[in-house]
């Protein structure tokens, strides 16, 4: 598929996501991207994004307003229910996260692993909820509101979650992908997070409580009350600390023709050891 056709496809998908009557133009070429010099492209992309979201269709804008109102109510309900004394029961009923130490490579199938750990869910609670300081460690949520809500980012993410989730009326799953979750920072598997919750640490308890409230509030808004089944959001950090990440990545790198890194400027020039293919 030629580059122009790829651009048209991406624009069409983005137009659908934003409910635009016609696909947007590809973003203007950003100086320094991709490559070594990031100067300028981030500002250019931010301006383009503001313009695109400003042109989004009525359905997208109305969906944002409806969901925002619903999420306030769902978060208030969860904030009232999720307490130190109820946390274990509620998590056992609602959130399943299976420990994963490695992934096998099937060279003939796509592989998708991503994670959204505690911080995003806490921040959404902080943005939309009437915050109880024992369940929330963030006090200033203005910049998160700008980045996640005002930019349309959260609405786009929710739309894609809705598109790929499977709902059997009881449980939400994500077929064909590994959608990772951790109620902490991903240093410990889910069972350990819950075990450590009982240890005396107001900060750690606030992290887990805030993440649980935010996660359940958002997903209740999208699907109604369901059990949520996720992949292990602690896989990367645990595998890195335990020295086993090479085993998984090596298996994929051995059959790949290229490695592409999507990373911030301080990681420009990043490479995976042992990968005998072009890396960019």
């Amino acid at each position, binding site marked *: 598929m030629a580059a122009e056709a790829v*651009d048209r496809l991406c624009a069409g*998908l983005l137009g659908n996501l934003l409910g635009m009557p016609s696909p947007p133009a590809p973003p203007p070429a950003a100086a320094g991207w991709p490559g070594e010099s990031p100067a300028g492209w981030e500002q250019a992309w931010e301006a383009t*994004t503001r313009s695109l979201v400003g042109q989004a269709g009525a359905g997208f804008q109305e969906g944002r307003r409806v969901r925002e109102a619903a999420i306030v109510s769902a978060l208030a309900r969860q904030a009232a229910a999720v307490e130190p004394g109820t946390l274990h029961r509620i998590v056992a009923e609602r959130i399943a996260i299976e420990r994963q130490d490695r992934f096998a490579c099937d060279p003939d199938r796509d592989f998708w692993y991503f994670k959204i750990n505690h911080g995003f869910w806490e921040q959404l609670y902080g943005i939309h909820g009437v915050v109880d300081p024992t369940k929330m460690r963030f006090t200033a949520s203005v910049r998160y509101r700008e980045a996640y809500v005002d930019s349309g980012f959260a609405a786009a993410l929710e739309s894609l979650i809705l598109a790929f989730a499977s709902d059997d009326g009881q449980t939400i799953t994500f077929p064909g992908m590994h959608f990772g979750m951790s109620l902490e920072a991903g240093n410990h598997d889910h069972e350990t997070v819950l075990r450590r919750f009982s240890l005396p640490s107001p900060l750690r308890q606030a992290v887990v409580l805030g993440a649980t409230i935010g996660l359940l509030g958002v997903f209740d808004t999208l699907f109604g009350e369901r059990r949520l089944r996720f992949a292990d959001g602690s896989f990367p950090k645990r595998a890195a600390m335990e020295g086993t990440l090479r085993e998984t*990545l090596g298996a994929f790198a051995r059959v790949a023709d290229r490695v592409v890194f*999507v990373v911030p400027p301080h*990681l420009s020039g990043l490479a995976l050891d042992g990968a005998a293919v072009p890396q960019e």
Partner: protein
Amino acid sequence: MHACWAAALQAITGHILARLETDDRVLVITQSAVFAALLGLFLRAAKEAMALEGKQIFFFDLGQVLDSATPELGGIWITRHEVGDPSLFYLTARG
């Protein structure tokens, strides 16, 4: 990254899909906070829309683990934790 999500999705997805024209299997490794989830979902939607036979994307959101390539420039996590295989990622001269 989140405030520029729409333009970033178009540019990055287009770049990765263009690689599939010449390469059969592309391993994507990212550190991009919550944007990584949006990118993974959008990229999957785009890849499926292309319906390419014999072309695969392997997508890994590894987050702050990648800072092990340059602990002095990385975030807080890498300054507080020790990785078991510190040579897994490194910076080339390009970086």
